[in-house]
């Protein structure tokens, strides 16, 4: 009962908050509303995840169903969405108080952000491939308006590229979705059942193999575009760099993961239907390509937000390789990587935003001495960068090691290429970011207000605590979730981290 209510809250609260934001009497009440939304979402998420981790799926009607994978996505969405909202209150609030933003645009920002979160939470909770597509498309639409929010020439251009590529991608994904339905309706009849992930997974071996394979190709290219997979990634660096920084964080951490989620769901079905031999080379190939392109392009970035954006492409690639390699280690590696990357990348962007507010430009070269100038910002950026580079003691190191080991078992040269590319990316990222953090501050810039500081620091602390603890300790409920998620994909095995 409570679990059902919490799921209902999760799927309704952001929508409600978004619409209410537009009509709240003044700015202060709207900000309190956002704070209340964060609290409500965290509580609801906690109940939902707890319930699913203990072995029950939460079902409301025929459409809403949260299994372990859905709960995992919701966990990620609410943690990063929550810190993102808090951070945005600080960041956009600072822009508001500096006069760079009008109150009505401030409201519209939060309305769109709420709708964006609503769409993604819905996508993770709907047991229907077509309605999930609609939700993902909805999040794309909200994101499109958010990317071009600042209305500068660069932002509009980035938004336009985003729109064009995303819409093509999503249309391809729709075509793939329809193909699945086409295959499924022969077995399950013309009904919503033919669109249910759960039902599809059960009847997968009876579905027409050719249709399934074709559908997967369309879906992996379509949703892959949204996930920032190379070679469809070209919109990503611009969009993530030009969007208002809280949005950059939430695009990199959440949108990419939801798109991966969609690909994973279908991969699960196709693998059950025709065996994993079909999807594996596609997924691993795209993954390695993404890492390669990201690592190479990171070398020449002069804008620190674009740098982090390319890093996102790299990490999506890493997760894909993990999922492609498969098996318990590969799958765990992929999932663990998604979670830790979401935390680390959002932290990185939060700090980037603080740098931007202080210095007013995004030129990497001109920023130095962050650790002395703004210890919290510099320290957090250092931690996030170390995490993103794949160093211990962070979870990304663990997931990468697991993926390499699993890859080596399957095919040693994949592991070798993977390691080589990671080494390149590791070096590049650190070479670009360390000069920003160490040394003597050169430019002074414009300090941020006290209230803004409180918001942004809180967001940073939550993220860093989560990020650091995952490097050492896997909470019981999370281990249970992972066990169930991996069971969904094949060999059931208990997950324990010493």
């Amino acid at each position, binding site marked *: 009962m409570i679990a059902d209510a919490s799921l209902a809250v999760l799927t309704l609260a952001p929508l409600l908050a978004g619409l209410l934001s537009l009509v709240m009497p003044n700015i202060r009440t709207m900000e309190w509303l956002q704070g209340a939304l964060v609290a409500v979402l965290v509580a609801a998420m906690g109940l939902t995840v707890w319930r699913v981790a203990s072995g029950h799926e939460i079902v409301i009607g025929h459409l809403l169903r949260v299994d372990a994978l859905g709960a995992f996505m919701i966990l990620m969405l609410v943690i990063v969405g929550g810190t993102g909202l808090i951070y945005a209150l600080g960041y956009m609030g600072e822009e508001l108080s500096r006069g760079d933003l009008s109150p009505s645009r401030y409201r519209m920002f939060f309305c769109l952000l709420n709708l964006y979160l609503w769409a993604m939470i819905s996508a993770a909770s709907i047991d*229907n491939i*077509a*309605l999930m*597509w*609609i939700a993902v*498309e*909805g999040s794309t*639409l909200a994101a*499109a*308006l958010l990317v*071009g929010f600042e*209305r*500068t*020439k*660069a932002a*509009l*251009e*980035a*938004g*336009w*590229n985003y*729109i064009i590529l995303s*819409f*093509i991608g999503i*249309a*391809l994904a*729709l*075509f793939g*979705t*329809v*193909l699945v*339905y*086409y295959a499924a*309706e022969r077995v399950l009849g*013309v*009904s*919503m059942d033919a*669109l249910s992930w759960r039902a599809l997974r059960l009847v997968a071996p009876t579905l027409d193999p050719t249709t399934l394979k074709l559908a997967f190709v369309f879906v992996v290219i379509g949703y892959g575009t949204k996930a920032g997979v190379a070679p469809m990634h070209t919109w990503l*660096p*611009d969009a993530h760099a*030009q969007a208002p920084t809280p949005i950059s964080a939430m695009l990199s951490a959440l949108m990419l993961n939801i798109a991966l989620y969609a690909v994973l769901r279908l991969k699960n079905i196709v693998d059950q239907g025709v065996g994993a031999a079909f999807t594996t080379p596609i997924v691993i190939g795209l993954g390695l390509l993404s890492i390669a392109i990201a690592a190479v*392009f990171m070398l*020449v*970035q002069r804008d620190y937000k*674009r740098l982090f954006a390319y890093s996102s492409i790299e990490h999506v690639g890493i997760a894909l390789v993990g999922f492609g390699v498969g098996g318990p280690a590969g799958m765990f590696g992929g999932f663990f990587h998604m979670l830790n990357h979401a935390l680390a990348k959002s932290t990185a962007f939060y700090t980037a935003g603080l740098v931007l507010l202080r210095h007013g430009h995004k030129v990497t070269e001109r920023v130095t001495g962050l650790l002395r100038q703004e210890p919290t910002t510099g320290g957090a950026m250092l931690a996030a960068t170390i995490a993103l580079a794949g160093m211990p003691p962070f979870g990304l190191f663990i997931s990468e090691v697991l993926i390499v080991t699993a890859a080596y078992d399957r095919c040693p040269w994949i592991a070798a290429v993977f390691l080589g590319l990671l080494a390149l990316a590791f070096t590049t990222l650190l070479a670009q970011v360390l000069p920003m953090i160490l040394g003597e501050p050169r430019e002074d810039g414009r300090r941020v207000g006290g209230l803004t500081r409180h918001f942004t620091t809180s967001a940073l602390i939550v993220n860093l605590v989560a990020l650091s603890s995952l490097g050492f300790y896997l909470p019981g409920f999370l281990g249970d979730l992972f066990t169930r998620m991996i069971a969904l994909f094949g060999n059931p095995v208990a997950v324990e981290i010493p």
Partner: protein
Amino acid sequence: MVENGLFLGATAAAYGMPLIVELGVFFDVLVAGLIIGIYTHRLQDAFDSVDVSKLTGLRE
């Protein structure tokens, strides 16, 4: 253009997906069209032209 063709193809192959799905897709496409319209308008304000090939500011 590409997108219109793809959507058309998708709808043709759909053989009648459940109504709620078709409604949802329609609504999405409608809003997508609106957003493209908004962007075209804003681009026109910023660049004084709707010639997309002039969007070359961002490279690499």
